């Protein structure tokens, strides 16, 4: 069950791929807010232990959402606008509720 729900009027719907699964999002979302809305509680992974990490700051400071987007592994999901067809790979493959796959 997602930690967040959308309250604003529906914007243009887009679809991104996260670890191989289609995820519905809205134009104007960042990849991080799109994933939070879709129920992903975690996005990145601790660089030392590999355990899933989550957005803590959502402004590009904490690196809890570092992942690979369209092949670039230096992306912070909270700083990248979600675009239709984007391919997101999290460092630790995650299930729908953000738990480990």
């Amino acid at each position, binding site marked *: 069950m997602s930690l967040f729900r959308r309250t604003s009027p529906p914007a243009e719907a887009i679809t991104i791929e996260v670890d191989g699964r289609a995820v519905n999002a809205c134009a104007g979302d960042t990849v991080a807010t799109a994933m939070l809305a879709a129920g992903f509680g975690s996005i990145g992974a601790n*660089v*030392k232990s590999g355990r899933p990490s989550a957005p803590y700051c959502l402004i590009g400071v904490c690196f809890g959402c570092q992942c690979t987007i369209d092949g670039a*592994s*230096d992306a912070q999901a909270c700083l990248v606008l979600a675009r239709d067809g984007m391919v997101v790979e999290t460092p630790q493959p995650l299930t729908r509720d953000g738990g480990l796959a």
Partner: protein
Amino acid sequence: MSAQGDIAVIGAGLVGSALALGLARAGARVTLVDAAADDFHASAANFGLVWVQGKGLGAPDYAALSFRAAQGWDDFATGLEQATGISPAYRRTGGVRIALDEAELDRTRANLARLHNQPGGAQDTEIIDRGELREMLPGVGAEAVGAAYCPHDGHADPLRTLRAMRVMLNSCATIVPMQVTRVRPQHAGFVIEGDTGRIEADRVVLAAGLGNAALAPDLGLHAPLRPQRGQILITERLPKFLDMATHTVRQTADGTVMMGDSKEDAGFDRGTTQAVAREIATRAVRSFPALARARLVRSWSGLRVLSPDGLPIYQASATHPGAYLVTCHSGVTLASLHAGEVARAIAEDELDTRYPEFAPTRFEAAA
């Protein structure tokens, strides 16, 4: 001058800490004077190679010293880990100096030939061709045409080594944080003055890197040293792909990859430049293309402590017996000896007799 009595080591980097450990083991009461100032200077910018190949061209004794240091590293590392639980992560994996074009390989081959022809030879270093290199290092880049390989080369983690020595020194020496301004001889022994007061000691060892130059003259010691800047890049952790050490790229025990070996005359400026960062990154990616997709997380620089001929200086003062100078720019490689035979030589007041070739008198003769 017996091994007993108290002895002050000035400088708590890799060189000073190793000497202090060795002196304590030799029975001296050791005071380690640490300039602190929230910085480990050269020790924090050490690339971590325990390196033999190519060392001592035209200086067979330095080649032999480096070889003995590498041989001594297993016991040195095991001793630290057993005493503190902190592993210096030393691995003698063999080392390669990769050549990225034929001209580079020719230069390496020529240097090796000269080393072979000098006493002590080239410490089992040999040229390997592209095929052998690729077999040893599958991830090596297509541009690599061959390399010099030496089985005695390896690498260790400089900061873990420093940390382990520090933990040991906490129990076998007195550590005094002090910015030293002067070391003066007095009627018996020496007085060390600094911002936090003064310390007296029967004997004193200068091991303060570039700081030695200012302290040496008062003690009849000669430290003609100059800084040479080296910049280092480091990536985030990567899956294990490189166990061996190379002279410009090495993967640490944590999985991060260090890249470096730049040389600049930039005085005491420890800034970094994008131009040198690009050169280092380019060579690293040409050597190991997989690094192209690695994330660079930090770059910093350190100042190598260089004597005029780049070799260490080991000196016992002729005018003020009991004052010694130890400086080098391979603090990790020589740490095993500094904590062993070099410390014993100081403890037994035999530094100049056992290491005549590293006395600074060699510079006066040449001047």
